[in-house]
């Protein structure tokens, strides 16, 4: 025992200890971190895990994202969504239960939000050039010609056959408003099967965290300032949560002095013009966060607040064009504004 004591006194900088120091070994294992940085779903993604199986967990998470991209992307020719779109007006297409359920949920959100969320928006996005970055401002006649193709209620879903049909030729699905949220939920499920203590997931700015940080504290999740790319409007302190933000400040183009953002109003067939610069949804469901961040942005401030008051199964932060920040009362104790002189109104 004396010899063991002296041998340990010579150790420094090593995380490999004897079984006698079990708490130290556990701390060393809990401190192991692994990160996967990659591009998928047309965006940058970063997944970090802490724990004994951190590397295996992030590897599995990355593989899952790639799997979902191959299944859901409409820019990948043999994806299920591409097959559905290619068959528009020509009958049903058999799909996996996973894809069927996702489309079903998307249609449900379309109903719940009064059409503010609509996965049949693809023809409008193509018209404005947001699909291939050949941006243009279409004529109103062109918009009116494609608007009849935008209606989630027209999608024919056969649960028994697991088939999806777009009955009108030219209709097309774009799952950009739900896919990252779904991927985030799936990634968390998969990672939780590994021996990890915590994880931080950012899929194109859709942030999800679970478990305590390596130092035992809560995560600090900033919400981007829609007016300044290198700044943030506030910090949410939490864990086991997703924070998903929608805004027009990153994907847009300007023509003749007018800026057109990528978030479309399904009713008008043109970029949203509302009193909101960004909407952040705080929720445990990535799918809900993804769908509602777009929906509430389309709705505008008053309807967004009314929607929250009606549902109250999520929290949110709204940044208006007037520079005000509105936040739901559920995050009163966990959300802090960066600008102490700024206006923060809880509803």
């Amino acid at each position, binding site marked *: 025992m004396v010899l063991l004591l002296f041998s340990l006194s010579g150790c420094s900088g090593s995380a490999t200890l004897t079984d006698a120091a079990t708490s*130290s070994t556990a701390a060393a294992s809990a401190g192991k971190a692994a990160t996967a940085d990659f591009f998928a779903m047309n965006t940058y993604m970063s997944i970090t895990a802490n724990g004994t199986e951190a590397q295996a967990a992030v590897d599995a998470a990355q593989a899952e994202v790639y799997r979902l991209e191959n299944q859901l992307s409409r820019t990948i020719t043999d994806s299920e969504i591409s097959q559905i779109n290619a068959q528009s007006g020509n009958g049903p297409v058999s799909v996996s239960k996973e894809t069927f359920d996702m489309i079903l949920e998307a249609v449900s959100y379309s109903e719940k939000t009064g059409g503010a969320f609509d996965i049949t928006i693809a023809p409008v996005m193509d018209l404005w050039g947001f699909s291939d970055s050949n941006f243009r401002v279409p004529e109103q006649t062109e918009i009116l010609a494609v608007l009849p193709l935008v209606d989630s209620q027209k999608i024919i879903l056969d649960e028994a056959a697991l088939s999806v049909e777009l009955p009108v030729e030219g209709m097309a699905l774009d799952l950009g408003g739900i896919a990252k949220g779904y991927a985030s939920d799936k990634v968390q499920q998969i990672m939780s099967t590994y021996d990890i203590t915590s994880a931080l997931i950012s899929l194109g700015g859709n942030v999800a965290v679970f478990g305590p940080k390596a130092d035992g504290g809560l995560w600090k*999740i900033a919400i981007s300032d829609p007016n300044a790319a290198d700044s943030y409007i506030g910090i949410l302190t939490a864990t086991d949560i997703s924070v998903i933000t929608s805004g027009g400040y990153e994907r847009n183009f300007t023509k003749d002095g007018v800026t057109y953002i990528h978030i479309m109003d399904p009713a008008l067939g043109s970029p949203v013009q509302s009193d909101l610069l960004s909407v952040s949804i705080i929720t445990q469901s990535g799918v809900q966060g993804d769908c509602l961040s777009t929906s509430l942005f389309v709705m505008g401030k008053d309807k967004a607040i009314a929607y929250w008051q009606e549902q109250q199964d999520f929290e949110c932060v709204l940044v208006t064009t007037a520079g005000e920040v509105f936040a739901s009362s559920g995050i009163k104790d966990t959300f802090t504004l960066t600008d102490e002189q700024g206006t923060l109104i809880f509803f």
Partner: protein
Amino acid sequence: MRGYPMNIHQKNAAGLTSAGRKYKPQYRFTRWDAGVVVLIVLLTAGIAAWLFQTTQNSITEDSHLEAVLLVSGKEVWRTDLSVLTSRETYDVAVDEGGLTVLAEAGKVCIETSQCPDQICVHTGWLISAGQTAVCLPYKTVLKVVSVDGQGSITADTSALYDAISR
């Protein structure tokens, strides 16, 4: 020897007991012995834990910020922001375009880019661990990480935030 009576376990100068037998010490492991062993084990564990904690503290104290540039997931450039005394630039040629990274003491940014949307350039200076500037067209990520004295990425408790939702 005459004198006080000898215990059967006592021995005389010749090593003989009072019974005339060669004295062979007999060790019996008592509760006191067990207690001493436990005490030594606990002492050892406590010292080991203290040594480990001291080591961890020194790692945190030695941490510094580094800028890392990844192109298509592969690290192509890295610099220690804590030791820079002058401007440092790094040019990346990607496809038919490219970008330039600029690093100064304690901060780094994508200074110029030939990408169409310029989001990476508009991100501005990165000054805290966890911050990133992303150029999607060129599949390039510039990020700031906190690195410990052994070159491993470590948590930076002074970081402005852990992640940003955008």
